[in-house]
């Protein structure tokens, strides 16, 4: 190895190390980008399309849009949704399917949106709620329709 090469490498090396040191030192004094969850829980912004959990929107009268057709259950790739329905007779004598329980397993949901795509009445939607960790797996099986709720009357 000749001398030029020896010292050349040495100085080039030192210079490159210097550049690295300079870069980190610059960052040392830059404002930090950390978002402090949970301290910022109140003002935390999550984009509205984020899929955190499946919900069934209810209106003020405790009514939802689900007609228990089961399309979402069929569309689901891994059996996350279970629609329990019963046949009831309406006032005018017709038989009609009615939702009893809309079971949704948050623990196995893959948020593929096939259920919401399949739903003809927009009865289900994804919400932003992400604070879902629990101690017991059975707590992840949710019933989406609220107790005492019923299907909203058809808009005509």
């Amino acid at each position, binding site marked *: 190895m000749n001398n030029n090469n020896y010292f050349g490498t040495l100085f080039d090396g030192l210079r490159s190390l210097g550049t690295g040191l300079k870069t980190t030192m610059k960052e040392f004094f830059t404002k930090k980008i950390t978002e402090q969850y949970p301290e910022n829980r109140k003002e935390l912004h999550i984009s509205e399309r984020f899929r955190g959990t499946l919900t069934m929107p209810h209106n003020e009268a405790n009514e939802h849009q689900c007609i228990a057709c089961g399309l979402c259950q069929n*569309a689901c*790739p891994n059996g996350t949704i279970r629609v329990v329905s019963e046949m009831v007779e309406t006032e005018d004598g017709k038989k009609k399917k009615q939702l009893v329980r809309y079971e949704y397993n948050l623990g196995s949901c893959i948020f593929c949106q096939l259920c919401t795509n399949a739903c003809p009445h927009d009865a289900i939607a994804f919400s932003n709620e992400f604070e879902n960790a629990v101690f017991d797996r059975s707590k992840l099986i949710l019933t989406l329709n609220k107790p005492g709720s019923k299907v909203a009357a058809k808009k005509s």
Partner: protein
Amino acid sequence: MNQETLHIASAELLAKMKQLKEVEKMDYLRSLTGMDWGTPEENDTQETMRGLGVVYHLESTSTGKRICVKTSTLDREHPHLPSVCHLWKGAELPEREVYDFFGIIFTGHPDMRRLFLREDWVGFPFRKDNNPEAENPLRMTNEETIDTTYIYKEEANGTLSRTERKLFEDDEYVINIGPQHPATHGVLRFRASLVGEEINKIDVHCGYIHRGIEKMNESLTYPQTLALTDRLDYLSAMQSRHALCMCIEQAMGVEVSDRVKVIRTIMDELQRIDSHILFFACLCQDMGATTAFLYGFRDREKILDILEETCGGRLIINYNTIGGVQADLHPNFVKRVKELIPYLRKNIQEYHDIFTGNIIAQQRLKGTGVLSREDAIAFGATGGTGRASGWACDVRKRLPYAAYDRVDFKEIVYTEGDCFARYMVRLDEIEQSLRIIEQLIDNIPEGSIQEKMKPIIRLPEGSWYTAVESSRGEFGVYLESRGDKSPYRLHYRSTGLPLVAVVDSLTRGAKIADLIAIGGTLDYIVPDIDR
């Protein structure tokens, strides 16, 4: 992508393949798919394929000609086919995969072991008449490592004979790297024989995250199969899904609108930048430069924010659908992408300052793990790895899809083939991706974002192969349909499998620390290898 398909009887396979390789210069084996076409039935025509077989997709890197070869054997007891791995080195692992899934023995293959499943697995799960759950409960015993393998040979009377081969001698110092090891980027397992700090030989064990996606696909409807593509190579979620959508659309004869094409292109490129930044971050982490790792992640978050705003997911995105995309672009999308471009350009310079130029990094990366162009092609190592070895293999240029034919970008090709070239290819590609986005972001055409689809999607009978350039190479989808609402066979050309195949030859004589650099720059994603 119509291409010539050859049906070759198993007895003539070897001669014909040799001719294809040597005369027609079909030097690149794109994909090798195992098939179970079932037992012969009465109303079969001559064209119908039956039995257990293999589909080969070949391409010539010099003429660009492509061909598809199908072969099969009707023997279900002891099915065997000649191995082609002496013609294409890249066939070695896929043939082991086919043996693993279908039980087809490849005669002349140097290492006929299972690739993904445990040695004590019963049966071959991908055969249509096999029920893998029935005989294979969860085994909690530790898997025994076997140091021998077999080479099979077909005797003159048609029976099989086998000879034993030792993988490691008794006096070798073998260390086990993985499956839970920070260097393997997931759950890959290497068994490395060492001489001091130098690696003598590496034996790769895959399958620790083999989830049977391809088998599951056979019982899912087409929209449902889409959900699983995101989880293959989660850093190319957009592109993988894009490939499958394109394949299904092609089979249905659906043409998506210009708007969808442009949106998909932009999303693919955002995803590519995301993946390449993660590549940079993880490589730095592996090489001990923790700070650079955090810089990479800092910038990646900006892209994830944009993706999340439009698609609703950060990593698993679920955006492309058959005939369109899930949702229209968010009103902020264009603005934020435009802010992102200068921001990234500035920060990429910082990457160069802190890592690229650093003498330690350069000395560790330059000259280590050299992959020659011939080897890259023979193994089918596409993507950044192939381009670093001087092989212009970008699918976006070879077979333009979506909006890639109308944008101007440079295919980054280096010739050194070492770790540093692989690293530079990725960093330079970020710039090219930014250029593509720049050209498209201002002219997103109007149009519908979703073609009208029937509620239940059925494909006509036939088979299709579509490829896209994912973040780490050619990602191909081979789809065979029999007219049902779920595919008969859906095979993904893994981008990572060829990359794992080259690890052994790249690391011979290298140091343990080089294994980290080589693994890092090859940039494989394990769930994509194991599928």
